[in-house]
């Protein structure tokens, strides 16, 4: 069972490797992403986040999920020395840098609750896998060449984990260096073009990939110090630097 749809402006692919999976199970995952998009998209004028940014919803009246996402974002800001921040320069909130990983993680929980053991959800290149692939082997995840999207430059084997990549022109103003007060556009953050992070789930991988990318060359050292996270950073010269445990995943 392998289905791709375009939702939230990106291809989302669900692979259900358990033989009893049906299209209906895939559809439930896509319905969840659609609901998340309706609630959290800053492109949708009537989404909860847009209404909050317009001042039409007060903080105390926000939904439980929105409050949770704000809390998770604040926690991430602290854990990354301010490199991850959902507050934009104009003061508005754009939680998309956190919501994607969080939503994939929740969608995987939804599948686990239904009793599925072997599956993969890929939303725009951020991935969580569970169990084994359709051949009964560990999931084989390729890292795309940031200079040539037709190429894969590394393959890692994962069982129940998350992997995410942050890159030079990823969506969103949530990637900037808060300590230099310079946005990516300023050109300072230009040495590193891509950071891939492996974590215990895609939520961890995604938020740290975003922050580590903002840290640029120092980011891989920050990642090295984190428990349970490994990373592969590619600079503009095509030179990769990896954390000390990364190679244990390489196939």
């Amino acid at each position, binding site marked *: 069972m*392998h289905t791709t*749809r375009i939702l939230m402006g990106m291809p989302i692919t669900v*692979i259900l490797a358990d033989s009893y999976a049906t299209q209906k199970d895939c559809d439930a995952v896509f319905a969840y992403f659609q609901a998340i998009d309706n609630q959290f998209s800053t*492109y*949708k004028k009537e989404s909860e986040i847009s209404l909050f940014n317009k001042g039409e919803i007060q903080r105390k009246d926000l939904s439980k999920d929105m409050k949770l996402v704000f809390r998770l974002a604040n926690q991430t800001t602290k854990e990354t020395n301010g490199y991850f921040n959902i507050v934009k320069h104009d003061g508005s909130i754009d939680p998309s840098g956190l919501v994607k990983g969080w939503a994939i993680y929740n969608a995987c929980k939804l599948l686990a609750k239904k009793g599925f053991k072997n599956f993969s959800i890929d939303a725009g290149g951020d991935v969580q896998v569970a169990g084994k692939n359709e051949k009964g082997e560990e999931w084989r995840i*390729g890292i795309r060449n940031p200079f040539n999207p037709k*190429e894969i430059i590394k393959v890692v084997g994962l069982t129940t984990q998350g992997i995410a990549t942050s890159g030079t022109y990823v969506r969103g103003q949530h990637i900037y260096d808060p300590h230099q007060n310079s946005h990516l556009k300023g050109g300072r953050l230009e040495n590193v073009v891509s950071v891939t992070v492996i974590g215990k789930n895609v939520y961890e991988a995604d938020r740290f990939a975003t922050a580590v990318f903002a840290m640029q060359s120092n980011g891989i050292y920050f990642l090295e110090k984190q428990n349970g996270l490994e990373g592969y950073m590619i600079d503009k010269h095509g030179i990769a630097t*990896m954390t000390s445990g990364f190679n244990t995943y390489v196939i």
Partner: protein
Amino acid sequence: MKKFLLILIVLCLLTAGIVVWNKKEEMDGDDAPIVAKPTSSTPAPSSAAAQYKDGSYTSDVVQTDRGFGPLQIKLVVSGGKISDVQFLQFPNKPGHTTEVSNAALPLLKQEAITAQSAQVDVVTGATQTSEAFQQVLSATLAMAK
């Protein structure tokens, strides 16, 4: 122009939920596939299937807004569904390796990236979340209507 593209994105978001993208296996040739897993044939419920016109659609060349160069994609529609998205032009360009300073990164292992030909289930990469990618995807989807 930017506003126009944004409108296209919104239109795409509204309609995109019903697009099914059945990626075909692309294991021939030397290029590693973008998504290499063959699909089992799993058509969406017919009520949810958006019908695009079959053919190949090439986007305009879009200049990415952070000075990383042009982006252009080709969208292939077969059987009314998107079967492939190819990159014709791609913004990132590698720099000169002579500028690499190993002294800056003394502790961790480094290597020059090299293409792999192994088969994979899924691919991780930042490409598909870029604003530029979403813009050309939306505009190209509109052509296929």
